């Protein structure tokens, strides 16, 4: 019972139940609005019928050549609405849109240490149909280091 919609600026006024979670960063208004301006189709909200926000995803498309990919910038589900597959639903939607909007080779999501606490990030990737031979992903990815500077792509 979850409505999937385009994220709106006014949703910022009701995202506390999600953003009060420790792992969810609250950014400035311009951060969210930049994404809405540049990638309106890749900013998605999930709403409960009682009008409360259940979760959201902010994504973008970046990189050239084989690096052309969909990147998940923020993905968070409110604690009350976890364990019902909402994050998977958002990722599926994002994967679908990344493939259609500007055919990309893979999608990725970086977590842990990406926010300036001196740790490296896990660069989690999933190859999309355009990457027929799955060249953009590694089976032993967890053995390779990925520094924040490795996650900057040219557009």
């Amino acid at each position, binding site marked *: 019972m*979850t409505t999937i919609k*385009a994220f709106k600026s006014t949703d910022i006024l009701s995202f506390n139940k999600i953003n009060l979670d420790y792992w969810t960063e609250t950014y400035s208004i311009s951060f969210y*609005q930049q994404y809405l301006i540049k990638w*309106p189709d890749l900013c998605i909200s999930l709403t409960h019928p009682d009008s409360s926000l259940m979760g959201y995803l902010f994504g973008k498309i970046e990189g050239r050549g084989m690096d052309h990919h969909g990147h998940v910038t923020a993905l968070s589900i409110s604690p009350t609405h976890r364990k019902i597959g909402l994050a998977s639903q958002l990722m599926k939607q994002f994967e679908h849109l990344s493939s259609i909007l500007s055919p990309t080779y893979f999608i990725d999501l970086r977590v842990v240490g990406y926010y300036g606490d001196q740790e490296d990030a896990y660069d989690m990737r999933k190859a999309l149909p355009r990457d027929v031979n799955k060249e953009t992903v590694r089976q032993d990815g967890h053995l390779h280091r990925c520094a924040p500077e490795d996650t900057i792509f040219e557009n």
Partner: protein
Amino acid sequence: MNSLRLNKIYDYIDAGRYTEAVDLCKSLLTSSKSDLVRSLLAFCYSRSGQLKEARELAVELVAAAPTSSDILAALNLTLSDLKEYSILADLYRQHWTRNGSNLDSNAKLSLANYTKAQDYKSIQSVSIRLSKVAKPPLNNMYAWWSVAALLMQAIAAENSQEKLIALTLASRLVDGLTCDNAQQTYLLTRLYMLSDKLDTAAHLLSQHQDHIRTSLALEEIHWDVLKQLNDHSTIKNKARELLLDGSQNYAHHSAYLSTVGQEDAQEAVALFEDLAEKNTKERGHVMALMELSKQFNDATLPTLIERYWHQFKNKPVCFDDLEVFVKHLYHTNQDTSALLHLFTAALHDEHEAQDTRINAAKLMRSLSITTTIERDLSDAQYFAQQWKEYQYTGNDVPSTDIHPADDWSVLASLCYISAFSKSRDTSHLETASSFMESAMLTNGRSYKLKILMIAVYRILGSSKIFGIVRMMRIQSVQQDTLSHFGCSEVSALSITSGDVAGVLPNTTTFRSVWAQSERECSEMLARLFENGTWSHLEDFTDFAMKLKLSLHKWILWFEHVRVTVSESSKIEEEDLRAWYEKLEEIGDVDSLVDSRDWSLLPNWSPFAESGAREQLHALTYQQKKWLRAYKRIYERVLSLALNKTEKQSSDKEHEHNHNHNHANGEGSSDIEEHKLTDAERILHDISLIAPSYHKQGSDVEKAPVAQQVLEKYGDFAALLAQAKLPVEQLHCVKVAIETWSLIQLAVPAPSKKKKTKSPSYPLYQGVIEALKTMVASWEKQASADASLFARMHELVQRRIDYKNV
């Protein structure tokens, strides 16, 4: 101009040393009237918070039509800081017109600033001109800007004629344009919708199915068009197709449900039954069945609730999903005893998962309909015990995550709060706060506990409230929606501004969070036009408006002023003038927007009882009527202090109330509706009497007015004696101190010449005596935070020593 000294100004600016830069600018201007230095002075004024001076100087410079790029750069920054985008836009437009070039940067800067100012008429006039002279594809881009500006003019039109003109012009423009992407399709659809050309909108969308597939915004608007056309058959077929294709978007369930009547209810039931059978993990299909049952009020709802329960009882969302349906059964007087039995059994079944038992507890409490104090306390103890027993479930959970047993502690706390609301016995809140403090030691990540603790500490008059608010790390974008939990009537619990540092956002300068947010929104709106993201045009405008007209922003501003008034021995005239100007800035209170999010307060109360928000209510909710009444109090007092004439409406209100005829006055209606607290009503009454003191010519005539003020002031002592809750006691004393400060502003102190013969002498002495007496009796009965009361006592002692000021 001495370039070394000029460079020094830039150095100061670079280092953020604006006060020194102001001094240097002023010194240079004594010998040379350089417009560049004046423009830098305007900028430094704006950055150091001297907004009025900055605005006056900048406007003077703009009137002289400057051409120097350095002066223009300084004016750009200053006027942007001041959010005077229209002045800036006009300045660039003049340059553009004067230069004669159609596509110079001044045209773009003018357009960007008109956008920031949301001046859609000017955006349209500039962009249409640019669209005629620019080469492809820029000409097309500016034409779409014009269409968007016309759409916004139509939305904001004050009458149907204005709207028609805007829409007609927009329609003519789009005739020559091709729709190349989802954003342009969206804009055009909105235009057709506003023009009541729904068929044209539907036709357009049917030609752009590929765009709909990649744009959720376009898909949403498509449903809206079909709904407005009452095209039930298309909605039904389309939704059905999507659902059969595996859609999990409840927007599609809702779309289908919106078409179902009694005649095809069975068909709908068959569809959702089929879908539910095929995908047992999807809640939406069972929810749709429950929705149908609710809609047609049939007898299957309890069975469906039970079915949902067995499928999803261990999901945290279960209570939120079921609440509306269980409540429906209660409101339609249906038998819920079997469900109550089901949930109670699950709650006490130790073989059930923890999440299942927590859901059962919430549903059992709701379905208890109403409870006794004894029941609340026994439930609280049971839930607290469960919280304790389930502590082991957090052993492998990182300390940064929410503890799986947290909701037990919230449930227990809510039961204690419920017992307090029935008895007004604060010992239940003390038990709740001790319990929550111990729960927070195990895991401090539960925002529900933090918010409950803030509400409980507030009633108990505990200064621990400020620590919890700081712990919540409220970010700038959350000030409007979240900070009210900690900041409502914060002035009652703070003795000095140091108490509220980091709690109360600074709302007095342009750097305040709301001013910053408004600037960001303006900037982003300009970028939205550049990118042509039309699906978010109305959303951005709506959002900017909500922040600009924030009710909470002004409530917090008042709290800041009240703290300052209470702690200051002497208030500078400069501050009084600044406050008076701010009061004018509030404008029409009715147009303000309340974005405070109360849904964060957990609410699992029995259905027939009020929720936690009401149960923890004390003093006032500080809504629009409170703000309006408080604004008038300060307008009256500050007018007297600054020797200004009150506004006509306030005068009328004063006359009206002073004649003791409170029945029909606008101000009195605020009081009748209890938007002000009892203590604030005393302040209100005094603010109405005080102006008469000035209207009387002789001391003999002034003396009875002063006596009236004193008599009214005496009501504080009676109120304090009646106050039961610690927060009420603190609030009463704080408003008494605030009123004393405002009396000092409104009624001149006894003159040294006349001494005891001054008409205000008995008033000043009387207020001091009243405060002393209040403090003495209050010391005996004070039941809250001892240190807070001790500090309050010191404050009173300090504030009654007015002769040394």
